[in-house]
Structures are given as C-alpha cells and as structure tokens.
C-alpha cells in the first residue's frame, strides 16, 4: 500500500512490525502472568493444607495433667500386691468426698470419668518404689481423661446443650475449680511420642507406628535397592537390545503406574495366603512396598545411567577395562547422584503408602511396639487412617498431629536426598 508520503511502503511495513512487536511482548507478559498465577495458586493450596493440619493438630502437642492428693488407705492397698489395688476408684472416692458429693454414686462415677486410667499405673509405681508410702497421702500427677482435656483446650463448650455434650455441667464446674486451685498444668505431650496406639486417646502415641514404619522401610530398602539398581544396570549396560528387552522396558514403565492397592492384593495372595508369612508384619509390609518401589527405582537408575556421556565408557574400554569394570568403576559412580535421588524418593513414597498396607492386615489394632520383623505392627500412614476413623473426639487432633509427624519424616527424607545429590555431583 503505497502513497505519496510513503512511496516505497517502508513506513507502513515499519509500523506493522512495531505493532506486531507490541503484540508479542504483550503475549509474553500474559504468559509470565499465567505462570505466576499458577505458582500462586499452588502455593495457596499448599499453605491452606499445611495451615489446616497445623490448626487442627497443634493442640495435640500439649496435654493437661491433674495433681490430686491420694491417701493410700492401708485397708484398700495390699502391701504384698500393691498393683492390684484400684487406685482410680480410691482417688475418685476421696475427691468426691472433698467435693461433697460422696453419697451420689452417679457423681462419684462422673468424678472418676474425669481421671485417666493411667492413674492406676502412676500410683502402683509410687507404692512399689517405696512400700512405706502406704498409709501416707501422696500428691499424684496423672493425665486427665481425653474429654476433660478437650474441655480445657476449648473444644467442648458450655454453649452446647448438656445432653449433647460428653461432660455434664457439674464436671465442667469441677474442672474449672481444679484449674482455679492450680491443680491442673499443661505440659508437652510426651505420650504422643513415647507410647503406642491405645483405645484411650490420652494414652495413645505414634511410637509403635513409627517403629513399624521404620522396620518396613528397612526391609523395603534392603530388597528394592540392590534388586532395582542391579536390574537397571543389567538392562541398560549389558542386555542385548532386542524386542524382548523392549517388552520388559514397557512392562516396567507400566508397573510404575499400577495402583498401589493392586500390590496389596498381590501381597495378600502371594505372601500371606500362599507363603503363610505373618499377617500385618513389617516383613510382609516391606515386601509389598519393595515390589511397589522397584519400577520407580529401575526407571530412575536407567535414566541416571543414560545421562552419563558415552565418552566415559569409551575411555574406560579403550584403556582395557572389561564391560563390568567400565560400568562399576566409572559409569555407576557418575550416575550415583541420580540413583540416590530416585532411591530416596521411592522410599519417601513407600513411607506414605496406605492402601497396600490395609490389605495385608495392618488395619488391626496393635497396642505394642514390634520387636521383630515378624511381629504384628502398625505403620504411620495406617495409623492416620485408624485414628481418623476412631470415634473419640480427641483422636481428631491426634490424627492431624500424626500427619504432621509423617510429613516431617517425608520432608526430612527429601532434604537428605537433595543434600546427598549435591554432595556427590561431579563435573565431567
């Protein structure tokens, strides 16, 4: 389009080019904005999730304990068999007397319901340590029952009608009184980390589950790492490249995408029903998780091996190294950062898996800490599931606390993966 002012059409072209440039820059800015928006949304969700968990779970980290004077009545405490006495009833009776409701059996029961059965063990331990204490009055400190604890944390309020509450008005008054007297103190909830699962929320902890998870991960690592890395090294360096090995590679990639619950079914059928290994043990859990982690480890290791430049292999071969020597002396050390990252990520995934463990029986209630790989045990991820389904209100906050413990372990493992990878990275 030429005219007298612009005979060669150059100005028109320049203007068109300038307009086009403006559009390109606008597109770039929009694209950057989308990217920032995406990151912002992801971060927002992350903060939301972590915030919710923290909000729900932080109250689980402290708990209230009551210090109450208990007169160890010789008539009710046997010197020969001190742990046989019902210290809980004893303390409740005495406390009811002090509150002036000793003749009302319902009231006495309500007083007893405020105390945890742990009081029995605390008192028995005190008496066994020094039997001369029988006949004296001891100040015994024991956790409060979970409902009392919840009231003191503000979870149970007087605003709900009494018949819809776990605690009666009377019990709430008594708790306020104890608080005013200074008999109640809030302390860090060590029970959460030193005890195993329990039907009583105030006595429930994650220890058994943590040990169970640790034992399981040990079995998983001991099996999946050597087999996975070995298989990947063989497939990548030594196996002939033909249709059969292609088929193997396709199958391994598919296995990595199989839902984990299918591995649970496999474990149930193979390890429990056919091999008769003990149900709900870290051994079977570790075996199932090892099968599940193998494809991930194999794929990550093969990828790391592929990334080592062929010039290193050629240099090793040219100096007279055999295939095996070239791989193990040169290629594998250079691939080590990638292998380690893949392995630790696979382990972190295995730590968080729940579905396969449920199928091999870990959903059962296991109160103790497993001693051996064949003992029944629980796992941290399964514990979260069990506590979430429990009926007591106090397990609500403990579920969130267990999730926080689980997430802390996973973050720690991923941090170790990153540190190790940085440490072992080498230039070539």
């Amino acid at each position, binding site marked *: 389009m030429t005219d007298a002012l612009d005979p060669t059409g150059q100005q028109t072209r320049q203007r068109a080019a300038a307009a086009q440039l403006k559009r390109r820059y606008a597109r770039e800015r929009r694209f950057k904005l989308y990217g920032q928006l995406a990151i912002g949304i992801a971060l927002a969700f992350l903060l939301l999730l972590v915030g919710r968990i923290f909000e729900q779970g932080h109250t689980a980290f402290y708990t209230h304990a009551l210090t109450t004077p208990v007169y160890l009545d010789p008539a009710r405490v046997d010197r020969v068999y001190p742990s046989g006495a019902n210290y809980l009833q004893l303390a409740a009776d005495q406390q009811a007397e002090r509150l002036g409701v000793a003749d009302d059996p319902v009231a006495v029961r309500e007083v007893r319901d405020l105390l945890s059965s742990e009081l029995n063990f605390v008192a028995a331990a005190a008496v066994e340590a020094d039997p001369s204490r029988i006949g004296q009055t001891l100040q015994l400190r024991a956790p409060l029952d979970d409902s009392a604890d919840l009231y003191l944390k503000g979870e149970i309020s007087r605003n709900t009608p009494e018949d819809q509450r776990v605690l009666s008005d009377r019990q709430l008054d008594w708790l306020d009184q104890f608080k005013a007297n200074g008999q109640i103190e809030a302390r860090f909830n060590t029970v959460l980390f030193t005890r195993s699962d329990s039907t009583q929320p105030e006595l429930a902890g994650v220890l058994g589950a943590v040990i169970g998870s640790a034992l399981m991960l040990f079995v998983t690592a001991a099996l999946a790492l050597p087999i996975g890395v070995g298989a990947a090294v063989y497939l990548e360096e030594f196996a002939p490249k033909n249709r059969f090995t292609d088929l193997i590679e396709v199958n391994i990639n598919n296995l990595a995408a199989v839902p984990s619950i299918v591995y649970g079914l496999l474990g149930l059928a193979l390890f429990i029903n056919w091999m008769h290994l003990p149900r709900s043990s870290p051994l079977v859990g570790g075996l199932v998780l090892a099968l599940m982690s193998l494809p991930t480890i194999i794929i990550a290791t093969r990828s790391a091996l592929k990334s080592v430049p062929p*010039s290193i292999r*050629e240099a090793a071969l*040219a*100096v*007279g190294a055999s295939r095996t*020597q070239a791989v193990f*002396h040169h290629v594998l050390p250079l691939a080590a950062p990638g292998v380690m990252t893949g392995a630790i990520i696979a382990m972190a995934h295995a730590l968080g898996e729940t579905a396969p463990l449920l199928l091999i029986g870990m959903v059962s209630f296991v109160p103790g800490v497993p001693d051996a790989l064949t003992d029944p045990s629980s796992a941290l991820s399964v514990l979260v599931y069990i506590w979430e389904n429990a009926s007591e209100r106090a397990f609500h906050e403990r579920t969130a606390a267990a999730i926080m413990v689980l997430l802390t372990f996973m973050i720690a493992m991923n941090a170790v993966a990153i540190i190790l990878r940085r440490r072992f990275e*080498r230039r*070539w």
Partner: protein
Amino acid sequence: MAGSGGGASSADAGEAEAGAAARAPAGGDTALLGPIKVSARSVSVFYGEKQALIDVSLEIPDKTVTAFIGPSGCGKSTFLRCMNRMNDTIPAAKVTGGILIDGEDVNTRAVDPVLLRARVGMVFQKPNPFPKSIYENVAYGPRIHGLTTSKSEMDGIVESSLRRAGLWDEVADRLHSPGTGLSGGQQQRLVIARAIAVQPEVILMDEPCSALDPIATARIEELIDELRVQYCIVIVTHSMAQAARVSQRTAFFHMGKLVEHGPTEDIFTNPRERRTLDYITGRFG
C-alpha cells in the same frame, strides 16, 4: 577392490624403504621405519545393511606414524576402531576380514578384546579424562591389568608416563586434583599418558588435535614425534598439513575404500590416483 598401490606385504615394505632412501621423507629418519606391525587383510565393516568399509588391505609398520586422510564419512575412523576392536561395542556393527598384529589375527572370537586394548591404546577426538584425580587417571590402566605390585611401583609408572607425555612438570605438584580441571591441551596429554601407562605397542589417535588450539596442537605433534621412536602410531586427521608434518606413511580413504597408500612425501607430491590428487588439491572433501 583392494587399494591400488598396495601390493604384497614384503614388496611394499621393501619399496617404501628403497624409495625412501632416494627421497628425504617428511617427518624424520626412514631408518626408524620398523617391520610390519599391523596388517589388515580384506577388512570390511557393515553397520546393519550398510557397508561402511569395503575390502581394505593395508600394512602398517612399527616405530612409524601412519596417517589416514580422507573426506568425512570415508571410513577412516571406522578402520581405526577395527584395530582395537572398539567396533565390538556397537551392536549393529560387523567386522569381517583379518587384522593381524605381529602376525596374529585379533579379529577372532579367541582373542579377548580387553587384553587387546592393553596392547593397542586409543586417544579420542575430544579429550575424555576420567572425572578422577590426575594420578588415578594414569594409574587406572596399570591397576586393572595387574602391572604393578606396590604403591611405589605405581608411583613410578605414573611419573614416567606423565613425563613421556610431557605433562609431568605442569602437574607434579597437583597429582590429586581432578583431571577434568586441566586445559584442553593438558587433558589430551593426560589421555596420552593414560594410554602409554599400560605399555601398549600401538597407539591409535582419532583426530587428537581437532578440539585444540594451534599451540596445544603443536605440542601434541611434537609429542607424537617423540613417541614414534617407541610405538607404532596411527593417526586419523582431517588436516592434510598435519598429516604432512607428522607422518611418515599416509593412507587415503574415499567412500569406504582404501584408494592409495605409501610414503607421505609420495602421496603429497606425486600421487598415483586421480582421486588422491583431487583431494589433496582441495577439489573435494
């Protein structure tokens, strides 16, 4: 078709010596041309269906530098790699024909390529030292071949190899620093030191200077001239000037065939084949 100008083995060697006595060849004294070290008999290489090297027969004398020249893709690197059976590492490659080193055919199943590669060392185009210390780079070969029994022996081998590669003075104080931290020219000399540490008989060099600057190139060429007194050296090069400077014998390849070979001076001043003349005058390639 066998390369024209290549005859029976003894006739060729005799012709080279007699002819060389009359003319002063480039690259040194002809009295150092040794007996035949490597003899190729009708060597062909197939990559799957494609034939990359067609019926090559060639004699390579000891204590000499033999240069392979030719345009890209003519098969000279492929032929070089046959001599230490590096083509075995390529799954689709098939090498037929006889490759005799000191009269013994090494292109058979009976010969272990691992042992062969200790006798025939290789230096690649891009320097590829191991990402280990300089000491470890040189010590690796002798260690896996069991050439030493004590640490002091190993120290001795490392020092002598680095000295002969002309690198000792520059790295003696940092033997345990990474080999990859050296400059390109130093890395290539390190690779040469690594190759001679296993006490080879033949050293193959695949365009060793193409990734280096002119000064480093000159040093490597000096080194090659020093080394040829002791080893049989075969060098593939794209630079005809380098071939003329460094080698005593030259072989010209074209499209998978060996076109002509003979004393370097003959090839560059008075080639027999038309194609050779066209190549060295720059008409193609």
